[in-house]
């Protein structure tokens, strides 16, 4: 895999807290720490995966990176420029450069707009080309993402789920962005269609020289298309490395549990499942120190007292754990 080492997006200690307001004067009494100090670097033309369970903050992270949420702390640098606090007009220009593909093909398309207008909207807003030209570009784009001719004038409800997602992809591509955040882009699709979509995204990546941030809960999907992956747990990145390493030699016990929990469609595959106890704690009051300690099968005393930092334990392999590698993926047992 050829990979240029230019970073396109860099986030440092990025935070996004949502206030919890209550009481007489709607004072903020607490925060939902959806993203709590995440640092990452994304290189040009790579596919970066963010995985985690629901509520871990992965979608918020994606949105915050694109300034669809205002970050509560930290900084975002896009192509060398700090965009953490840029104003609306500047941001509007930037919006051409990074785009998003959404999860739900039903709610992500305005039901009262024709597919053509939806895709064209970005062009229109950024006043790219003439009206006639825009229509032409849009028609081509719709064709490129594999939609039948005549789609331009159709409404979203006239498409199947997969086709809608193609419209969503066309919309994201319209302004020729550099970076696309795909938030659970294929989760809602049927298995047979999901594969088509992943293929399409890979094709487009090549054609348009795209960089993807691929947010998903589905490890198998992430594994199959990402170069590097970050695993998130309760608003924090707990492990980040390239795909092969992550799946062959995960260091964080959570990653191990996560990988082992995914059912493999092979009747002979021997499962060594690490079944975690309990539920994901609430991000309002995350457990102190290591946030995973309440469910960790290899927890030690220090885990309750000190927060492990995301450190480069091996070259290119970051992990936030006091005892990295103590849980083995293949045997599911504790490695002494």
């Amino acid at each position, binding site marked *: 895999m050829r990979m240029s080492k230019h970073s396109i997006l860099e986030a440092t200690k990025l935070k996004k807290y949502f206030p919890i307001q*209550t*009481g*007489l*004067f*709607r004072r903020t009494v607490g925060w939902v720490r959806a993203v709590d100090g995440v640092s990452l670097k994304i290189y040009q033309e790579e596919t970066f995966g963010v995985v985690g369970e629901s509520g871990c903050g992965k979608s918020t992270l994606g949105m915050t990176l694109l300034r669809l949420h205002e970050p509560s702390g930290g900084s975002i640098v896009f192509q060398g420029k700090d965009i953490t606090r840029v104003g609306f007009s500047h941001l509007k220009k930037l919006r051409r450069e990074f785009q998003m593909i959404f999860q739900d093909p039903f709610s992500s398309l305005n039901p009262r707009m024709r597919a053509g207008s939806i895709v064209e909207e970005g062009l229109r807003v950024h006043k790219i080309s003439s009206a006639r030209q825009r229509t032409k570009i849009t028609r081509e784009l719709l064709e490129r993402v594999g939609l039948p001719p005549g789609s331009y004038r159709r409404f979203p409800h006239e498409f199947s789920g997969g086709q809608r997602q193609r419209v969503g992809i066309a919309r994201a591509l319209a302004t020729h962005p550099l970076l696309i955040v795909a938030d659970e882009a294929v989760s809602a699709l049927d298995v047979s269609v999901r594969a088509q979509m992943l293929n399409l995204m890979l094709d487009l990546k090549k054609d348009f020289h795209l960089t993807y941030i691929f947010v998903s809960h589905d490890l198998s999907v992430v594994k199959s298309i990402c170069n590097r992956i970050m695993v998130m747990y309760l608003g924090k990145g707990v492990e980040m490395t390239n795909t092969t390493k992550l799946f062959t030699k995960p260091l964080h016990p959570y990653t191990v549990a996560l990988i082992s929990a995914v059912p493999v469609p092979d009747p002979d595959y021997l499962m060594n499942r690490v079944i975690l106890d309990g539920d994901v704690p609430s991000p309002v009051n995350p457990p102190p120190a290591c946030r995973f300690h309440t469910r960790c099968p290899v927890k030690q005393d220090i885990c309750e007292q000190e927060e492990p930092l995301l450190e480069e334990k091996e070259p290119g392999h970051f992990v936030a754990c006091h005892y990295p590698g103590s849980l083995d993926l293949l045997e599911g047992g504790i490695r002494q």
Partner: protein
Amino acid sequence: MFFYIARRLLFLPLTLFGISLIIFFMFMRLSPEQRVALYITSPERLRGDNVERLIDLHGLRDPWHIQYGRWMGNVVRGNLGWSNVGKEPVYSAIMRRFPYTLELALYSALPIIWLGTWLGTLSALYHNRPLDHTLRISAVVGWSFPDFVFGFFVLMIFYSILGWFPPGTLGAEADAVVKSSQFRSFTGMVTIDSLLNGRLDVFIDTARRLAGPVLTLTYVGFAYILRIARSSMLEVLGREYIRTARSKGLEEKVVINKHARRNAMIPVATVSGQTIIALLGGTVIVETIFNRVGIGSFMATAAQQLDFASVIGGSLFFGVILVLGNLLVDVSYALIDPRVRLD
């Protein structure tokens, strides 16, 4: 919950202040001559500089902020002013009329809610069948009837022809009983007080007079509840937990009455609460037609005669009722539906 209530109550003065400002500025559009017309009721009073003297006496020519300040000052001292329409202080004028309106609203709410819910549920259970269509159309027809037209039909049939439901609040004799010293007032609502006092004759008299307005309000009003009950029931019937209940092998009666109805009644309960509140402010026409004492007809008369003190006092009173009533509805909503948390 506590904070929710406290917060809402905190906004009450603000709301009242806003109401007073709106009404005040509406009245300020009027010339002093127009506003003094309340006291100049006949041409004979136009003599000499009477109009000017009255304007002076009531300070109607002062700058608006002085007039507002004066009014506010009185309110702060607990004095809502003099109601020329009620012929007594605004506060007592309202307080003495309110029980009658409350009584009417409550008795009307009863059949409105009961009929509306029952027929609405029926309609939902017979979705798209003739019964459903019949019920809905007849409800919409009722909903489309102006209350004054229907009220007159009721008077025509039930008083003029049948002699059953006389107009008014209380007959002279019953009134004398109520005013006598032996009659103890507990609630101010004659139907209840008369029973508590064991005076069935008074109860019958007042109940007969209530029947007409109640009938009118019921026919004109039950459609709304019916519609809510119907669509809410339909929605609930399509919910998964209904399927769960069926999959447990429960009898259809249990499924409908226990699992569906309780959930379907949540929006109905809210709307019912709002209906009672709306009825309190919506009895104007019916009270006028049936010549009933009440705050609605009082307010309408006051408004027509441009009695500033009564209008603003009454509006503030309604403001309080509305805010507290809605608060009550919200709180009870939270009690019915365990999912709702007020904060």
